[in-house]
């Protein structure tokens, strides 16, 4: 997806025009686009041209959309050079008083349009949002993701918790309970396993993807039906390093939705496109860090209250899903691919959202958004082609569906 940007610029000059601002001072110089060199060399060059050899600075640049993005490693440095058109505008800040919240927002219009800083939040929300704190990409690692959205019934959610390499406890409890199923004889209560408690500050809670009273249906792909609480406990513990739980959320209103109401779907996609696009650079950053393996990442851990009105229109109550409710709707998004900007986004409804947490404890309210990367598109395309197979599988799975009460 970088192509549309890169194509004209590569055809243009081989030199990149750099305009660097530190405090009130500007410096202008040029770089060879084909041989940008390493980031540390570039950083040295900046210190040199600004004559601030011993001052630690944070380097940011304005991307094609006018958003301020950081340059702090070779990858995003190269990206910045590659995408300069041909002017590369740099903003240097002293490290001590650098304002991370500035990243992701439009450095030029920031003052005029403060709302934009709360990017993915509802556009129709005019409440004042605290600035979103984003730390540096190297501080990111995956903590959870929603997977297999294309093959699961809409009422189910498959959550992957990445426990590895962190101190945070998984932090949840399960219990026995009963769930209601439809059988030939009518409603039948059957035993089930439910999440009974979340440990505050635990991994499970921090993802926001699991909640008390969610029914656990599978653990790492294995159905828990007919298994005892102790067995399920042992299965989860045995898989704790890479735990994938399929749940039927108690709150069915935040479900990922694939509906025929194209208006709603494209609406949401269109809306998220701005914000997504504005984070384009970050997406690239992730891929370069090598952690972005395929799926797009959209943060799902909004406080539920904030999303309710938003999600309302996306929720399909299963009763109203007669008209082929099982067919995942990918077409609108595939069509949108032609538009480079929108294609860079992914509808949270169909992408594989993934939550990213920041290691530093300062990110308590880490509500941020990343856009889809190139990977997400290919995934989406693949999903589209596999939708038929998925439909078959799903119709099987939905026999004896759990009804929402």
């Amino acid at each position: 997806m970088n192509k549309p940007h890169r194509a004209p610029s590569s055809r243009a000059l081989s030199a990149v025009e750099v305009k660097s601002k530190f405090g009130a001072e500007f410096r202008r110089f040029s770089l060879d686009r084909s041989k940008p060199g390493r980031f540390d060399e570039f950083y040295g060059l900046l210190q040199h041209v600004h004559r601030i050899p011993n001052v630690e600075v944070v380097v940011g640049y304005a991307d094609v959309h006018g958003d301020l993005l950081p340059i702090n490693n070779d990858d995003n440095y190269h990206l910045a050079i590659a995408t300069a058109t041909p002017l590369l505008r740099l903003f240097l800040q002293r490290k001590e008083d650098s304002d991370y919240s500035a990243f992701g927002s439009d450095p030029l219009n920031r003052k005029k349009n403060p709302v934009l800083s709360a990017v993915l939040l509802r556009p129709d929300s005019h409440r004042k949002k605290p600035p979103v704190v984003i730390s540096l990409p190297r501080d990111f690692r995956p903590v959870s993701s929603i997977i297999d959205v294309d093959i699961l019934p809409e009422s189910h959610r498959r959550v992957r918790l990445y426990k590895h390499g962190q101190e945070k406890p998984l932090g949840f409890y399960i219990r026995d309970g009963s769930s209601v199923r439809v059988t030939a004889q009518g409603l039948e209560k059957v035993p089930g396993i439910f999440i009974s408690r979340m440990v505050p500050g635990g991994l499970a809670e921090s993802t926001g993807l699991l909640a008390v009273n969610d029914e656990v249906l599978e653990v790492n792909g294995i159905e828990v039906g007919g298994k005892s609480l102790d067995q399920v406990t042992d299965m989860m513990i045995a898989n704790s390093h890479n735990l994938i739980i399929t749940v039927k959320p108690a709150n069915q209103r935040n479900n990922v939705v694939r509906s025929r109401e194209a208006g709603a779907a494209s609406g949401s996609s269109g809306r998220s496109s701005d914000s997504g696009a504005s984070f384009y650079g970050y997406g690239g950053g992730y891929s370069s860090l090598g952690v972005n393996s395929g799926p797009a990442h959209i943060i799902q851990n909004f406080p539920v209250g904030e999303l309710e009105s938003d999600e309302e229109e996306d929720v399909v109550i299963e009763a109203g899903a007669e008209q082929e409710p099982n067919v995942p709707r990918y077409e609108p998004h595939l069509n949108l691919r032609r538009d480079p900007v929108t294609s860079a986004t992914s509808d949270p409804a169909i992408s594989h959202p993934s939550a990213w947490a920041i290691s530093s404890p300062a990110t308590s309210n880490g509500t941020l958004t990343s856009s889809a990367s190139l990977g997400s598109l290919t995934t989406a395309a693949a999903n589209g082609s596999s939708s038929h197979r998925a439909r078959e599988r799903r119709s099987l799975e939905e026999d004896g569906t759990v009804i929402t009460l």
Partner: protein
Amino acid sequence: MKRFRRHGHESQRDRLKQELFQFNKTVEHGFPHQPSALGYSPSLQLLAIGSRSGAIKFGAPGVEFMGLHDESAAVTQVHFLPHQVELVTLLDDNSLHMWTLQAHKGLSELLEIGRFTLTGPPRALPHVTRVTAVLPHSSGELLLLGTEGGHVFIVEVPGFRELEERNISLDQVQSVPEDYIGRRSLEHVEALQENPVDSNQVVIGYDRGLMVVWDLEKHCAVQHIPATQQLESVWWTEDGSYILSSHSDGSYCRWMVGNSDPTTEDEEKSDIPYPCKAIMKIMQLPTEEPPFLLFSGGMPRASYGDRHCITVIHSKTHVALDFTSRIIDFFVITEGPQNTDPSALVVLVEEELVVIDLQTEGWPVIQTPYLVPLHSSAITCSHHVSSIPFKLWERISAAGDLQHTHYSKKPWPITGGQSQAADPPQRDLLLTHEDGTVRFWDASGVCLYPLYKLSTAIAFDTDADPNDNMNQSSEGEWPPFRKVGCFDPYSDDPRLGIQKIHLCKYSGYLIVAGTAGQTRLDVREEPVLFPPGFQPFALVQCQPPAVVTALNLHSEWKLVAFGTSHGFGLFDYHQKNSVFVCTLNPSDQLAMEGPLSRVKSIKKSLRQSFRRIRRSRVSLRKHHVNNAAKLQEANARLEAELAEMELAPVQRKIEARSSDDSFTGLVRTLYFADTFLSDSHNTPSLWAGTNGGGVFAYMLRIPPVEHRAEEPVTAQPKEIQLMHRAPVLGIVVLDGHGTPLPEPLEVAHDLARSPDMHGSHHVLVVSEEQFKIFTLPKVSAKMKLKLTAVDGSRVRKVGVASFGSNRTEEYSESDLIFLTNQGDVHVVSLPSLKMQVHYPCIRKEDVSGIASCVFTKHGQFYLISPSEFERFSLSTRSLVELRCLVEAPLRRVMEHALLNDEVLQEIQKSLEGGP
């Protein structure tokens, strides 16, 4: 193409699986848990024991049958139908069950053929039909049922057809006597007895004391015997001339049976002047002087009220046999020309079966060849050794014989049926360990027979006076007590409890390890202080004292490895010094306290109670799925259960294991192997697996034989930490052929092929959650089989077993067998780690059964109750199972319905004498 070939290979493997594996529960060893009733058939020479859980089992040695009532009510009475192979049981829920022994392909099977519940007149109170006494009539066709309402119902058997016209109602009986007129009802029928010489006459004993002799044919009362004390039992003497009655005040009376005159002929009271407990059962045999008089109970209430006694009086001999637990029932086996001479007294008490030889001076006990009380003190650990070399076997049994001199020399008197089981192909030993003793049992065949007992207690200083348990029959004590039986629940000193055991069957070294951290090494040498048998050789005391949790012995290298809850050590018993000690996780306070944490047990019990709820719920569901109406009912019940559950919600924390969990230093397994731990040379090595998923491997340098005594054994460590941190239960090194290494000295004795030392070795680490094979010496993971992650069950016990094909003699292979916490046994192939078969074996709620399971090469056991072992087999080839035949007493004889014993024997004799 490739796929087809693989398919062919798989089906071939499937066929092989059928030839190799087969799950059978074969034999139960030990004494039935909570017995509640005893029955004996003189004609079949079989005894039957009913238990509180509704099980019945009976038989002569090698002739055992098992039946389980569908209802789980306790069996209150067991009666054989005279001269037949049928047997009637009465359960707590007032149902009667008819069982028979059916011959099928030359083997007898126990089958339930009928059930019956007495239905009284319409609108009768339930107590009217509550059965309190059962008398199978000697005709074998009638069953007399005395009830709580005082009626006697007569039922035709084996079909259970009520003969209403013949019932003996209370009104018919209560025609007289004066003393009873106007008094309370006679209350329930306490006893029913048949006149041994006139099968038409029965005596009906009522609880209030009245006894009525009733003529079945004339349907009228012949005689009334007006005893005034509450009745406990009735006995009709062999010649039919006297009736003995025993009463609740400890008295017994002898009544002359007159023709029609209802008068007391003779009355005796037991001559103790103080209040006594009831005499529960009385017997007198034979009638010629001097008779044997036997009764249970009747002890002076104040001084000996707590004793469980049977008094035997014969001429001048008077002994009160003092049993170890409550007497359930007893009977006397008779022999001689009239079949009236008592030869043995068989007593069923709550915890054991005792047989007393009444013909030998001093009435010694006959050692029981089966139904042995395994639990005479609690079993703390079991160990099975298969294929014992004959030499060692002989020495052990010789030592055991010396311990059994106080038993009667007479053979076991209950001899009915024939055992068709083949002679055991090998000699197996089961060792159980209790109050500091090690008991050696012959586990080769279907009967578990005690061989030898080794007591380790004398090696230690305890507060207990060794003379405490001696039989001091204090002089002048009356009645003269004699202790019988071996069940002794108070003998345990928990400090002596044995935790682990290892026996090298080739060298005869036995090592036992106790609760308090002592590791003892005993060798059979010249008897010095110890009685003949295993002699103590060395003693190791761990500091700080902790429970020994793992133990291994390598008799070739003369090394002993032992693990405790916080480390392990290696002891060189040749030089008698310790090679090294490795302390793990010393900060683990919990581990220091030992594995019995109170908190844990509460958690466990909670868990169990909820499992119970859950189980009932699941079974509920199974039954009612197809019925909508019942479904609602089930839902309602489920709701109630859930409401109950909500009061105390059970939750399980989902948390990854971390290295700072407690008990990580607990050593679960120790293993010796001659393998490649470094470079290209194979060396002796010691492997230890911990509770925290750690594996420690030590390369050992053992000096050559000629310097073995001087040069020290040295060790060099290597450590593997399993990422999933699940407890390591077993370590096995596989040789170049993928076969587990043989046991020490096995090759030297030509009993195993020497391992392949050319190909590369692998080590298999079995944790509670998965099986993992690592290459040696590099220790890189090669393959694994996940268990817990896939089905949520955890490995509890693991062993290597050899399986032979039932089709060809030549083929046999070694496989891994394991038992999960769900109670399933699985077989996994080696070295490919493929699941082969699995069978449900133990109920998952049966925690002690799972914990007690023992796997060896050819034998598998677990405890089904504190007193019984169940033996099961996974192999098609080596099966120890019951095969027995009981032949029905001659059918023709039974056609003559009302023949008495004497005539019957004559007929039988004439038939036997004939061609």
